């Protein structure tokens, strides 16, 4: 088990290297460089930069040098913890995304636990009571969940909350806590606000995971070990929870590998609609403003979250399924 985890951890630097190259190429992708577009932007707003400042910026980022040198400079600064400065905000990128990254992770994890807490019972009930009222009810519910775009759900709920209850449900904090440092009151305030984005973001995933679990469980429920467990005298619920659910949950756990990153990055539109202080809206703004250092840093942090999500799912799988542990150990 330890060997398995260490092996997974050893691949990480390599993965991050590949991802950093991709992120850097994204920064380089637009025509011209960002200093040019920044100067153009300044010119458009009526101000200007003198040639010495422009050259200083160019030299700082190594723009007069070949691409691989530029990448090397960027990655060196990155490794030293310097993400660079957002040209748009004129602030260090680390300051800009630090707080938002934390909130993104908190919201992502909350959504994730919500999804599983709802999807597991729905999947189990749908499979064990196949073709019952519950099964059909949740089937319809799941199709609606999968088919409705999450931003749409967000808009509808916002509208309902505003017209029916007269409250505004955007953001993750009340105005008085929005720009405050962390405190107990702020955490409580976050708890009061996080449930709605959590439910909205989780509906789609809940529906998908419940469908997957139902299908897997239906396969498992006819396996001979079920008959054996019954023949032992085990009660129906205990045996369902101990054997088939345990086996049907494996594919679900391996779906974490893509589901966690999806929660982190897929919340972009919903976060924009709900005006959440996560990194999604910031990415949108940096892309519109061609603030490519910021965009690159955000894309890289998405990659980082994806890698961590996959790592968690790999470790969980090995912990759950001895067959995977053994296979890895024997290699």
């Amino acid at each position, binding site marked *: 088990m330890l060997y398995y985890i260490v092996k997974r951890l050893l691949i990480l630097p390599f993965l991050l290297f590949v991802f950093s190259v991709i992120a850097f190429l994204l920064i380089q992708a637009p025509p011209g460089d960002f200093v040019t577009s920044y100067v153009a932007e300044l010119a458009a707003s009526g101000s200007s930069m003198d040639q010495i400042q422009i050259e200083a910026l160019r030299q700082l980022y190594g723009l007069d040098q070949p691409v691989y040198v530029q990448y090397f400079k960027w990655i060196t600064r990155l490794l030293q913890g310097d993400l660079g400065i957002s040209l748009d905000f004129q602030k260090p990128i680390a300051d800009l995304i630090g707080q938002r990254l934390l909130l993104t992770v908190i919201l992502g994890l909350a959504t994730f636990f919500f999804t599983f807490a709802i999807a597991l019972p729905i999947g189990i009930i749908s499979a064990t009571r196949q073709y019952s009222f519950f099964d059909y009810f949740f089937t319809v519910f799941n199709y609606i969940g999968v088919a409705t775009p999450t931003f749409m759900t967000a808009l509808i709920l916002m509208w309902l909350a505003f017209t029916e209850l007269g409250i505004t449900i955007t953001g993750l904090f009340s105005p008085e806590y929005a720009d405050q440092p962390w405190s107990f009151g702020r955490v409580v305030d976050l708890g009061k606000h996080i449930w709605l984005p959590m439910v909205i973001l989780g509906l789609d995933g809940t529906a998908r995971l419940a469908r997957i679990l139902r299908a897997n469980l239906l396969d498992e429920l006819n396996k001979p070990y079920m008959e054996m467990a*019954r023949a032992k*005298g085990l009660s129906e619920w205990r045996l369902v929870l101990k054997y088939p659910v345990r086996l049907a949950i494996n594919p679900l756990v391996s779906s974490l590998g893509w589901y966690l990153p999806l929660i982190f990055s897929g919340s972009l539109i919903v976060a924009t609609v709900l005006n959440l202080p996560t990194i999604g809206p910031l990415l949108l703004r940096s892309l519109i403003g061609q603030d490519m250092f910021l965009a690159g840093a955000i894309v890289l942090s998405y990659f980082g979250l994806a890698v961590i999500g996959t790592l968690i799912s790999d470790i969980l799988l090995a912990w759950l399924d*001895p067959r995977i542990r053994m296979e890895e150990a024997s290699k």
Partner: protein
Amino acid sequence: MFWATACAMPPTPTIDRHTAMTEKNLLTVKNLKTLFVMDEGTSTAVDGVSFTVDQGQVVGIVGESGCGKSVTIKSILRIIQKPGQVVGGEILFRQAGGKNGADGEVIDLAKLDGRGKEMRAIRGNQITLIPQEPMAALSPVHTIGNQLIEAVRLHMDVSKVQAAEIAIKRMAEVGMPNPEERMELYSWELSGGLRQRVMIAMALLCNPRLLIADEPTTAIDVTTQAQVLSLLRDLQENHDLAIIFITHDLGVIAQVADDVVVMYLGRVMESGPVDDIFHNPLHPYTKALLASIPSVHGTTRGPLPAIEGAIPHPFNRPTGCPFHPRCASHIPGTCDRRTPVLVAKNDRQSVSCFLQNDAAEED
């Protein structure tokens, strides 16, 4: 006087030997009927099966695939799942319950709720199952020990440590080398023979009165088969166990069984002591089955005699005797119209065939 007249009457051969349950009978199945009700139609998987298992006796149930042997034993265990259901008959089981292994009350398992507490207390405790495929019957993600300990603690009020001791003792008894170490292993880390030993150990954990072995040697190779059979025979003698042994292999039946029940399409065709069935088969189906066994002493090089035709589809059962379309000696006008019932032919064998008793007919 009524009693005097009754006693004076000569015993008639048509008396159903499974009506009265005597002291030595452990299990008496009477007219068991199990249906599978599906959208496509209703399939009568078990259609009025009757047989008796005495204490310490090995009864072999033999028949082709689809003849209802597995459904019969699942019905006895009451683990038939929907859309199947036991709709009729009695499953009389003499429980343990008295002190020092003395007999307790006779209970009709057919009347219990299959998922209820009472049935679950009997299942896995007094009646246990050895499954057909040990690999599939064990969970791949739980250790052998976990599954054995669970089986003990379902029926005995013991700690995990005590349960593990019981499990290790049983594993040693069924010839499992290094039982303590094997407890930590998973099913897929054992060989086929050892896996089946785990299942046998599991079936013995709670000192059952009746062991049901569902083709326990089908999934393992021939040399291991012989070991498993002799192990079962030894255990049966040492524990005075009653065993219902299901197989389609007549050779296996000849090795292990005291009594044989021959089934075809959910009905009992013939039953009796193994020697009589093998040397004096009465039913054409039994005769045909025996004729199709390859013999090492055979003189001819011709093809083995096979039974003509195939088993009818369960939704499309023939009228009359279920075997008549494949029976070489069926009586036209009788066998295809009237259904024979199982009657005692002599004091040992019972047979369900008009050729043996033309009075036999279902009402």
